[in-house]
């Protein structure tokens, strides 16, 4: 199967600074992938290059088998919702309003669903006659989300699309995304640092740190890839012997260690016998531990 998005050896240099450093990954069609990483890790630069808004310094990107900077037809099959979306200001008498932005999108995207756009506009309480430049930050984000979902583009890129949205509105975004995706599967790449909130949506995660891919794996694999082990320090040391320990903290005679690797039933029985408390890491905790390791290839660690 041709990947929906294929990134090979991608680098981007700004005035001598490497924003992206030899990034490669493939995204299968019909999946929701999380692009995770800290602020400044390179997520936005990567998405901009995938969307064809920017040129790479080295390497290549193909989307749906073609180049985003060479193939204009591709622009109608891909939607890019940015953190602070800009909309045209002029050309409309009396100012560009929400309904104008929606109408423009309906002309641009062949699979546009006007009913869905209307329902989402109501869900997010978007005033359709309000001028776009008078929208609050949250409303501007909501408008981006409405366009991103209603366009039903084959490739849908969301770059932290929730600026200014409260938790209720963010939950609405996740719910509506899932509901529409279930009926109209497409390829979604969602960059976020609210990992726990979005964890259930994500099938795969690509984590970048300082412009490099540090993890590219199935979300469920990452979830089970490390366990927090706590109890008497001596018992923790005995259990952790010969295993990779990512983090260790101690208080008095008790210790808590994050042990990498999947635990089997024998390990669990042994932990019980040693009176140790086992707690699986959340996706967010696992990603934090993985991303914190400098200079190591996290892919090898999690697959081990």
């Amino acid at each position, binding site marked *: 199967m041709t990947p929906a998005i294929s990134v090979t050896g991608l680098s981007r240099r700004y005035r001598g600074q490497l924003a992206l450093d030899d990034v490669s990954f493939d995204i299968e069609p019909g999946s929701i992938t999380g692009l995770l990483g800290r602020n400044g890790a390179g997520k936005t630069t990567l998405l901009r290059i995938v969307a064809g808004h920017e040129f790479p310094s080295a390497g290549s990107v193909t989307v749906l088998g073609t180049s985003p900077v060479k193939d204009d037809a591709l622009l109608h099959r891909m939607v890019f919702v940015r953190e602070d979306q800009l909309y045209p200001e002029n050309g409309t008498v009396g100012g560009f309003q929400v309904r104008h932005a929606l109408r423009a999108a309906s002309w641009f995207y062949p699979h546009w669903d006007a009913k869905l756009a209307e329902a989402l506009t109501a869900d997010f309480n978007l005033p359709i006659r309000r001028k776009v430049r008078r929208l609050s930050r949250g409303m501007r984000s909501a408008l981006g989300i409405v366009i991103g979902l209603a366009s039903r583009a084959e490739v849908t890129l969301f770059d932290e699309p929730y600026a200014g949205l409260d938790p209720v509105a963010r939950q609405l975004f996740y*719910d509506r995304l899932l509901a529409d995706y279930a009926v109209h599967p497409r390829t979604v790449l969602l960059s976020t640092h609210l990992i726990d909130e979005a964890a*259930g949506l994500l099938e795969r995660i690509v984590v970048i740190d300082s412009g490099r891919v540090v993890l590219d794996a199935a*979300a469920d694999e990452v979830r089970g890839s490390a366990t927090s082990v706590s109890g008497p320090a001596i018992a923790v040391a005995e259990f952790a012997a010969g295993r990779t320990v990512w983090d260790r903290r101690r208080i008095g005679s008790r210790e808590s260690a994050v042990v990498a690797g999947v635990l089997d039933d024998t390990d669990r029985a042994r932990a019980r016998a040693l009176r140790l408390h086992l707690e699986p*890491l959340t996706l967010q905790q696992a990603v934090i531990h993985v991303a914190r390791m400098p200079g190591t290839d996290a892919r090898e660690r999690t697959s081990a």
Partner: protein
Amino acid sequence: MAGLEEGAPLFVQVAERLADEIADGGLAEGERVPSTNELAAFYRINPATAAKGISMLTDDGLLEKRRGIGMFVAAGARARLLGERRKRFAERYVEPLVTEASRLGIDADELVALIRESGYVQRGTRP
């Protein structure tokens, strides 16, 4: 991820929840189980994850597919689940109970007495 815990693979948790429902009789044999999309919307998870949970139960023969209609609880699924759970009961519940009891210096007679006091009667119903 409404109602699911972080940590364990989500598809395993989805499968366990469905298995629980079959074991308690909440989902009767021959009854239709929720679709992948219904499960995805309910638990707020990716439909592919929900599908993986369903296929885990299908592989175990607890669910069966009826073409064009959906997934149904297979005949004999409840009895099989209860049988498996009975087998794992000692390991999952008795062993930790006994471990903690011995840590606290509670002897076997005392433990049995405590179980009686808890209102346990046969079939697990409370008086």
